[in-house]
């Protein structure tokens, strides 16, 4: 058998040479293969990209976290009133927090967030800000690294220190030449001192949404205790001619589960608890781990479509190869006769044509890889998709195309091998 196989390398080279002889025909033959392999590669890259993106999001939000946001209930449920003193009350309450703490299993910690809309003043320069009162742990949990200065400590928290941590872009907007660390500012009417500047890394829009940070305003972080003392729970929104007052006791709570396995059951209990105490749906529960699952489902649909495209292309490609090989074998009947007369065994003829189809498979597969890379490029640059190209996917795609080619070559090659040498020699 080894002696039979030694010549196959040369036969393979011959096969590739035959492909270059009729370039258009070879290209058309390989087209199905090219699309099939290309979509396999694109599918794998896009799948890996989506996975990487989700994992990045999840690590931003924390696998063990369940984030509960207060949301304003839909407008129509608000009583129609012209009373200017009307105060809209909605969202999570301190009672909710206490109940969750006491009842909900699998909870390691609960971090409250108090968000108010205030102006941050430096001298006469004012900037609209989302002021987030958070526990010291909050920053670490969401990967908010302090690049300069320091982060909050327990003393800030217990004493309600008038300190804040800001984004570099806010420092930029303040248009001050002074060192931002230690800079005195006013938040609303309260004097605060900047103690830290965060990394410039911004949250993805997705994370912003989950953390209820609106993109238009700068985020400023202060200790939760300071926030509750200085600003309380009432938010006053002034619009042209009207004033909207609302009280939200807890704008957000971050429930940290004891481990990632506890996330799903804890979230379920949390959901039913809140549903019992809230008539209106004035809260939303964001479970990062669930996001992964949802995204995986959409991804699965995409994958099924791509697998179908790949399978159909490869099937059509395989049929195309079988067809062209049958034509080739008829064309080359005389050559088969000559080879048989010169001492080729049936097996030699079989292997020769299988090797030639393998050559089509490999060359088609290589072009398919290029096509796949092109498709990935287009998806990334034109459609803004995420893609991660793994080299192993090329190996997989190439072996698929090789396999398809060989399978479709079996029937034609057997036909060639079974030809009667006398008839083949006489064939014109």
């Amino acid at each position, binding site marked *: 058998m080894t*002696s*039979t196989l*030694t*010549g196959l390398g*040369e036969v393979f080279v011959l096969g590739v040479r*035959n492909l270059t*002889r009729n370039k258009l025909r070879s290209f058309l033959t390989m087209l199905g293969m090219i699309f099939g392999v290309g979509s396999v590669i694109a599918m794998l890259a896009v799948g890996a990209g989506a996975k990487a993106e989700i994992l990045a999001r999840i690590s931003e939000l924390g696998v063990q976290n369940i984030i509960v946001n207060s949301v304003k209930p839909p407008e129509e449920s608000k009583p129609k009133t012209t009373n200017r003193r009307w105060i809209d009350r909605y969202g999570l309450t301190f009672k909710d927090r206490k109940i969750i703490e006491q009842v909900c299993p699998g909870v390691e910690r609960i971090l409250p967030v108090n968000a108010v809309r205030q102006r941050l003043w430096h001298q006469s320069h004012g900037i609209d800000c989302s002021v987030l009162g958070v526990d010291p742990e909050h920053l670490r949990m969401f990967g908010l690294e302090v690049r300069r200065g320091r982060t909050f400590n327990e003393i800030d928290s217990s004493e309600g220190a008038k300190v804040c941590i800001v984004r570099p872009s806010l420092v930029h907007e303040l248009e001050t030449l002074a060192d931002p660390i230690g800079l005195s500012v006013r938040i609303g009417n309260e004097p605060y001192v900047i103690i830290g500047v965060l990394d410039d890394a911004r949250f993805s829009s997705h994370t912003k949404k989950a953390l209820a940070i609106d993109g238009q305003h700068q985020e400023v972080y202060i200790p939760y205790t300071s926030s509750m003392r200085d600003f309380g729970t009432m938010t006053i929104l002034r619009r042209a001619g009207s004033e909207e007052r609302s009280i939200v006791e807890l704008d957000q709570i971050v429930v940290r589960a004891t481990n990632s396995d506890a996330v799903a059951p804890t979230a379920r209990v949390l959901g039913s608890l809140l549903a019992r105490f809230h008539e209106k749906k004035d809260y939303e529960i964001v479970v990062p781990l669930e996001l992964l699952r949802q995204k995986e489902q959409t991804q699965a649909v995409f994958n099924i479509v791509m697998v179908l495209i790949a399978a159909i292309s490869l099937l059509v490609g395989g049929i195309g190869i079988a067809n062209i090989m049958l034509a080739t074998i008829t064309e080359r009947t*005389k*050559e088969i*006769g*000559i*080879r*048989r*007369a*010169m*001492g*080729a*065994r*049936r*097996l*030699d003829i079989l292997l020769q044509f299988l090797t030639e189809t393998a050559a089509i498979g490999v060359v088609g597969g290589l072009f398919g890889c290029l096509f796949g890379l092109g498709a990935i490029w287009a998806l990334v640059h034109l459609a803004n998709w995420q893609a991660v190209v793994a080299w192993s996917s090329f190996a997989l795609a190439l072996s698929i195309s090789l396999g398809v080619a060989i399978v479709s070559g079996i029937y034609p090659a057997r036909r060639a091998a079974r030809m009667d*040498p*006398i008839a083949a*020699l006489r064939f014109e």
Partner: protein
Amino acid sequence: MVESIVELSGIEKDYRSGDGALTVLKQVDLQILRGEFVGIVGASGSGKTTLMNILGCLDRPTRGRYVLNGEDVSSLNDDRLSSVRNRSIGFVFQSFNLISQFTVLENVEVPLFYARLPRRERHRRAMAVIESVGLGHRVSHQPAKLSGGECQRVAIARALVTEPALLLTDEPTGNLDSKNGEEVLRLFYELHASGRTLIMVTHNPEIARALPRVVEMKDGFLGEQVRQGVAG
């Protein structure tokens, strides 16, 4: 004692036709000794081609015994027959039967490929044979760029490259003009002179007359032509 290269005894070949078997070769006996140059003549339909196919191990006799170069090949299987063709027989066809997309060198190398020789050895031997038929300057040409005479010389080189015991030629000059035909014939006579065993099927009475020994097929029977005045 001169050994025999071909020994046919009681060879018969049946073909299944519409209503029963048709026997195209009937009790054919033939002995060809090493170094002989034998012509086979016969009208078309006489069974001449079938005899050639059997002699060339492309076909098996239905009955009878064929010993080629000391080896009984009458009932070998397809693979073994392929191997016998490769080792012991060189074919030269009327229509050259070169592989058109191959160069001269590659064409001559084909039998050596199936003899499983390493590439370098194939090159060396093929080159030597191509030189010996006077086509050393044409090795990398494709058959389409060669004249008919040159093509037939390539085919002869290919037939010789495995040093076969028997050279079978079927109307080798049939597709050539007289000048090229003569040249090819001269080459065969040279091979004969160097001690090779040749069998040539021919329609051409002129060529047949010149051959040292001629056998004739007629209605499936083989007969020896007895002639006078020709040196054997």
